[in-house]
């Protein structure tokens, strides 16, 4: 392939200037006249019926403009999950319901002239609750006499009478026979806790009626087009009169793939005809937005004489919390990503998602994959140690190879059966080799393991996807201006990932113009074509594919026009010129100017859509170097090495940033982050003093590397980067702890007390 000019090169962000100068580019960075401020009254009980609600005193308050309870809203069930239509998540949620199902569930909405008035007003709403029995233990949910979602009018719940939000099982080969033939069988159970995204920008939405009597929603979202569709239906308001604007977004990680503010804001604006604003507080973010799905995962692996895997069985019990957004699809990703990592002729999985009276889980970076890889990569490590093998070696023996097909991934799909999965690029071999060197694997693994402070290393490998095969779609519109700049309008949602820049690089590479010549505008349902949204690591792969196609079409038009203007049959594009064989040439500027103003006038422009029946997995190997204080159980992470195969890297600096940002999230998952509840289901740690995310002084040394592969299905050979690096650090850390002190913790978070209790007493 010819040397590329912009792909794979360091390219400053197209929005960089506005970000370092603090320009008003985020959702809340706007002043609206006559603005109403919204606050939500939330349930103090985990499970209760609202038997009486009285807002008469509140309505008399000066400055209170509107109060909404469940009595004021026509009930239309929906899912808050911003997924493609029809959504694979259950329609089990109302904007406001007469029943509350977790501490923090919505009870009433107040709109007032100021935040302070709204806050005081909340306290004056009189609510009588009839408490109902609650379910807090995930193992007690199925067939519990207390049922969370009674009612036939809800759709898509697997079995509401049994509190089952979603369920699937699948088998490839014959697992029973597979285990019977195996030389040795290993089986262990693992548990994953509640953790929260902690994007620093909270959920915030502003709505108003514009000069054309249309509803405008300016919101921090990953899914503007799904917001428009869902709001239109649940508020029974014509889609043609809704415009959703996605400005810059201050981090999302899946948390903003959810309708959590827009419905309330839009309802208030439609009732009052006034601009409205709703911003969640940090406390609300922690317990009343969304979390990662807690799961209990059981893995069983049968191993042959030659250390290959003969059978793998996986059981998932997932806690969806009080509602079921993403319940089915998250656990199908848990299964398909981890079961797609290793070769095995016999594979079976059984998964059940249940309702409990705890916070609602949703999409969170990795989308279930981290919940699968912690168990899988812990167990593979256990097997290697049991068999006396180097854990890296056991992985080399078993991971998938280029050319393999992965039938289990096809059966599982995402919410429904998917498409044939064939691995066309896999850099796991190089990832492991590079990582071993960078972490000093052999030295540290076999080093001395005695004394109070013991050092050890661990490894984990992982896979993810690139978009959702056959479901995600991205589209773009590109037009040429007479100075040879191009407007690139696309639905793809840059949520802080830098995808606008990556898209500009792809367009620049195709059109052979500098990146500065590409003016990117992303995500406004009025101005940009459809995109399924920024989730499932889809933007580079899916939307990037659309950008490439549209740019190629624009380039074809430039060439055609150039040839006409030069009056030649054959020409080539070279450095912003159309050049004929005899050396005659015409610049991009001239082509465009003449085409716009004088010669057979038209606009050089193109649209393109892209979808894929493939979701090529990016791969990663993460290595951790830790020291365990065996007197206290405290763990110090010395270093994390993360080596990733994302095919052709589009923007090295931003790709590194994705990896570097993932690592502390996963380390937090392993060590310091966990939402805790009292015995009534009330959350106890709702701020950053009590919920511990990594700060600049907590970071270990981070080493980030990419290995080179080429994915034939991706734009310029690229695969996705956003989620893959979050899978490895937690299991690599757990494995490093085992290597250091012989203790295996199968339940996150790994607290010092768990380690100490597991250490042999002397």
């Amino acid at each position, binding site marked *: 392939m010819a040397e590329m000019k912009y792909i794979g090169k*360091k390219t*400053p*962000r197209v*929005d*960089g*200037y*506005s*970000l*370092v*100068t*603090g*320009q*008003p580019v*985020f959702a*809340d*960075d706007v*002043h609206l006249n006559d603005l109403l401020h919204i606050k939500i009254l939330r349930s103090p009980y985990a499970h209760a019926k609202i038997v009486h609600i009285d807002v008469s005193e509140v309505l008399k308050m000066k400055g209170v403009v509107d109060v909404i309870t469940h009595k004021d809203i026509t009930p239309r069930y929906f899912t808050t999950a911003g997924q493609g239509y029809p959504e694979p998540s259950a329609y089990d949620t109302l904007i406001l319901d007469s029943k509350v199902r977790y501490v923090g569930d919505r009870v009433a909405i107040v709109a007032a002239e100021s935040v302070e008035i709204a806050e005081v007003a909340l306290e004056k709403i009189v609510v009588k609750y009839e408490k109902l029995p609650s379910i807090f233990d995930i193992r007690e949910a199925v067939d519990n006499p207390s049922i969370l979602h009674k009612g036939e009018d809800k759709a898509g719940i697997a079995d509401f009478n049994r509190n089952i939000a979603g369920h699937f099982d699948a088998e490839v080969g014959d697992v029973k026979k597979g285990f019977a033939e195996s030389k040795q069988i290993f089986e262990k159970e693992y548990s994953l806790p509640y953790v929260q*995204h*902690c*994007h*620093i*920008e*909270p959920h915030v939405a502003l709505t108003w009626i514009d000069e054309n009597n249309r509803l405008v929603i300016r919101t921090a979202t990953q899914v503007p087009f799904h917001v428009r569709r869902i709001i239109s239906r649940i508020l029974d308001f014509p889609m043609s009169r809704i415009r959703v604007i996605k400005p*810059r*977004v*201050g*981090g999302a*990680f899946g948390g903003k793939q959810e309708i959590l503010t827009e419905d309330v804001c839009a309802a208030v604006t439609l009732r009052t005809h006034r601009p409205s604003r709703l*911003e969640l*507080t*940090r*406390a609300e973010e922690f317990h009343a937005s969304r979390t990662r799905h807690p799961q209990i995962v059981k893995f069983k692996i049968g191993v042959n004489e030659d250390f290959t895997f003969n059978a793998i069985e996986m059981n998932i019990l997932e806690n969806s919390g009080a509602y079921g957004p993403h319940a089915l699809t998250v656990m199908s990703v848990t299964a398909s990503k981890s079961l797609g990592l290793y070769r095995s002729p016999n594979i079976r999985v059984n998964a059940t998602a249940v309702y409990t009276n705890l916070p609602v889980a949703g999409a969170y970076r990795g989308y279930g994959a981290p919940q699968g890889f912690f168990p899988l990569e812990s167990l593979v490590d256990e097997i290697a140690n049991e068999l006396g093998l180097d854990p890296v070696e056991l992985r080399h023996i078993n991971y998938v190879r280029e050319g393999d097909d992965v039938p289990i991934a096809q059966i599982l799909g995402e919410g429904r059966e998917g498409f044939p999965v064939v691995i066309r690029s896999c850099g796991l071999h190089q990832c492991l080799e590079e990582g071993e060197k960078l972490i000093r694997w052999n030295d540290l693994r076999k080093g001395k393991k005695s004394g109070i402070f013991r050092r050890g290393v661990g490894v984990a490998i992982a896979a993810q996807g690139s978009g959702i095969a056959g479901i995600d779609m991205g589209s773009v519109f590109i037009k040429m201006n007479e100075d040879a700049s191009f407007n690139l309008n696309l639905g793809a949602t840059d*949520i*802080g*990932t*830098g995808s606008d820049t990556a898209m500009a690089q792809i367009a620049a590479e195709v059109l052979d113009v500098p990146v500065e010549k590409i003016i990117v505008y992303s995500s406004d349902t009025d101005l940009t074509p459809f995109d399924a949204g920024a989730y499932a690591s889809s933007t580079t792969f899916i939307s990037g594919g659309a950008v490439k196609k549209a740019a190629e079409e624009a380039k074809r038009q430039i060439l055609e026009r150039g040839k006409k203007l030069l009056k030649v049959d054959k020409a080539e594009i070279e450095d912003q010129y159309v050049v004929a064989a005899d050396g005659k040439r015409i610049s991009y500027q001239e082509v465009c100017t003449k085409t716009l103003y004088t010669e057979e006038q038209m606009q050089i422009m193109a649209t393109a859509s892209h979808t894929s029946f493939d979701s090529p997995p990016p791969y990663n190997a993460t290595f951790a170097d830790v020291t365990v204080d065996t007197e206290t159980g405290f763990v110090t992470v010395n270093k994390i090495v993360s080596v990733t195969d994302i095919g052709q890297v589009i923007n090295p*600096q*931003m790709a*590194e*940033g*994705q990896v*570097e*940002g*993932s*690592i*502390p*999230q996963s380390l937090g998952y392993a060590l310091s982050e966990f939402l805790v509840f009292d015995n009534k289901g009330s959350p106890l740690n709702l*701020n*950053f*003093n009590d919920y511990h*995310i*990594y*700060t*600049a*002084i907590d*970071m270990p040394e*981070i080493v*980030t590397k990419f290995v080179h592969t080429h994915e034939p299905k991706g734009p310029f050979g690229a695969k996705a980067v956003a989620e893959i690096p979050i899978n490895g650090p937690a299991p690599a850390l757990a494995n490093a702890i085992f290597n250091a002190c012989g203790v295996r913790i199968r339940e996150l978070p790994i607290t010092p007390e768990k380690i100490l209790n597991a250490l042999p007493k002397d």
Partner: protein
Amino acid sequence: MTVSFTLNGKSTTVDVPLGRSLFDFLRGSGIFSVKFGSDKGEAGCDTVLINGRAFNASLVLMHSVAGKEVETLESLVEDGKLHPLQQSFLDAGAMQSGYTAPGMIMSIIALLRENPYPTEEDIRDALAGNLDRETGYVKPVQAVMDYLASRCIELVEMKNTNKNSC
């Protein structure tokens, strides 16, 4: 309550309700580089300088800034030209969404005023109150190191030029 202070070099007198925070005031005045991060004010994306030191604007009440000098990120750009530290953040790719970049930059500006030659440990200490969920702090710290390195080179060059002129 009337409060007089200096905001980004301009003397300012405002009438604000008691109990109003500097954060609310700034955003209300269109200074949008200060960002909301947490109800308890511990996130640091609202970092501003008061008399040259870094503070979280959410934790500062307006009466406390009377007679003081308040600086926000908006003051850094001069004649449309980025402050070299901002340029370093850009060059190092020290942001993903950029939501927390203004706060980090202001914390470092304060650090550099008290200590023009900070170590990596000093830099991390100064950033410890700037919570970020996107960069792992790797590139922001790198950006500051790059900035320091480029300034050292500048100083050496200046010294050399001076020598030549002597």
